[in-house]
């Protein structure tokens, strides 16, 4: 068990008349890697968007814990939340068209001090100080041409994950991180997630439909359905839970 990273209280989000997320009282991030599963339309992605304030909530409160301090992030903006160490990867591929793979990673590493309109002569220094870190990831995932643009969906997906990892978040929300990745890259992402959680104290929440991955990787699983988190428990508990089986895994075949 770890100290919790997030505490959601009475979180509600409606789209039109439909309540998409309705969470009473949930803590997240008490384990290294947690899973969030549920049928399509359960509100998993919306929940992640609410936490990072990509979408604003209708009511409720989100508390974030960092260095033993409690921070209310309900009113903070997307970029502020990211700077606090709460970062998400995207389910739908997101990329910067004009930036090469290396540029994209440099963007992630550049500090706000280096990003001033009058500060345009620091490129060498920045590249030198970040070379090691960037090379490490580029070698690890074997990008064919790091100075070109990310072409395939898989490359873009990996790039999204690496950009987030470079920010060294405290709590990383990963929305279907391995969808569209080949098997060997999936293994590498999992390996990386394990390394980060064990060695750097990062907590990760993954949303996935690949249940084998969930059972294999996570220490704790939240089951979400119709906007509510119904059941929380270890992978084994969730796997054998009757509600989960009927609502998600298709009846009685488990």
């Amino acid at each position, binding site marked *: 068990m770890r100290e919790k990273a997030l505490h959601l209280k009475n979180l509600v989000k409606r789209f039109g008349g439909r309540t998409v997320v309705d969470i009473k009282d949930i803590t997240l991030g008490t384990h290294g890697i947690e899973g969030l599963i549920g049928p399509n339309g359960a509100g998993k992605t919306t929940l992640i968007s609410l936490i*990072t304030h*990509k979408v604003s909530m209708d009511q409720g409160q989100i508390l974030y814990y960092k260095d033993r301090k409690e921070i209310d992030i309900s009113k903070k*903006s*997307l*970029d*502020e939340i*990211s*700077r606090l160490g709460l*970062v*998400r990867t*995207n389910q739908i591929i*997101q*990329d*910067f*068209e*004009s*930036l090469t793979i290396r*540029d994209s990673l*440099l*963007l*992630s590493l*550049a500090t*706000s001090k*280096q*990003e*001033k*309109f009058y*500060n*345009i*002569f*620091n*490129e060498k220094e*920045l590249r030198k100080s970040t070379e090691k870190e960037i090379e490490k990831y580029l070698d690890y995932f074997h990008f*064919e*041409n790091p*100075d*070109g*643009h990310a*072409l395939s969906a898989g490359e873009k997906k990996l790039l999204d994950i690496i*950009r*987030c990892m470079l*920010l060294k978040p405290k709590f990383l929300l990963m929305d279907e991180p391995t969808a569209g990745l080949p098997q060997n890259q999936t293994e590498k992402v999992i390996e990386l997630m394990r390394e980060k959680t064990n060695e750097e104290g990062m907590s990760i929440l993954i949303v996935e439909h690949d249940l084998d991955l969930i059972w294999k990787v996570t220490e704790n699983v939240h089951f979400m359905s119709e906007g509510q988190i119904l059941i929380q428990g270890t992978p084994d508990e969730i796997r054998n839970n009757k509600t989960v089986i009927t609502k998600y895994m298709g009846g009685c075949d488990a």
Partner: protein
Amino acid sequence: MELLLSGYMIYSLSFLLIYIALATILHLQFSITGIVNFGIVGFWGFGMYIFALLQLKLGMPFVLAIVLSCIITGIVSLILGSIILNLDDQAVLVGTLAFATIIEYLTTTEKWATNGVMGLGTIKMPFDFGPVTDLVFFLFILVCLVLLILYTAKLKTSSYGRLLLSIKDNEVLSRSLGKPTFRHKIIFFTFTCMLIGFFGALSAPLYNYIFPRMIGPGITFTIWIALMLGGRTRLLGGMVGVVATVGLFDYFIETVVPIPTEYAEMVPNFKFALYGLMLILILMFRPLGILGDRKREVKR
């Protein structure tokens, strides 16, 4: 040679440089940051009028008037930017266009300051070198333009340039990486509008005499067409575009090509029609402009 150094030619070339500067600044705003500024002429005219007022009404020296007109343009664009820059592209377009229109109307209606349609004059050159005064001023503008282009080139390979490109490409993703994009947009918009104001202030002594009709929306459209024509993604796209539009029509055809006098007055009217035709042709056959886009090199 005589024609080249004659007063009119220097005057024309000076304006060509001003236009190139404006197109380069539009490249910074639109092609790098994604800010759809359709009110370039507003900031330019604003800088020009403020400079003229400071010099004529308050008797300020050249340098002080230039600095102050930049600062005042900056303050105005800061206010405008904080209102419109978190809206979508269409709203920014309308907002900036409205700003330019407001400036044009204010210069007409506020007669106590601007003399209305009568215009303001005479705006003096900052120095007097006898017959080569115009040439020296031309060289001064040239130096400013070169500095601007060097800055733009350097910016594109700096961390700030990458940040601006990321805002243009995908602002939400950029924010989710912790970049305060709204703040950066306001800062950069203010900075670049100050540059437009600066070149506006430089235009005032060139014109000598300024009046509201000079700051109509035609200039904005010309600059946009020039940038599109030259290649909006390229550093020198603005320059090529300006030479192909303003340079070709206003100077080459009007000064070098012998047009019978009875047709001469048709040229300015035809100009915009031909700009439009050129734009349509370019967009059809070379959508990224004359210079086009650098191919995405895929080294294997």
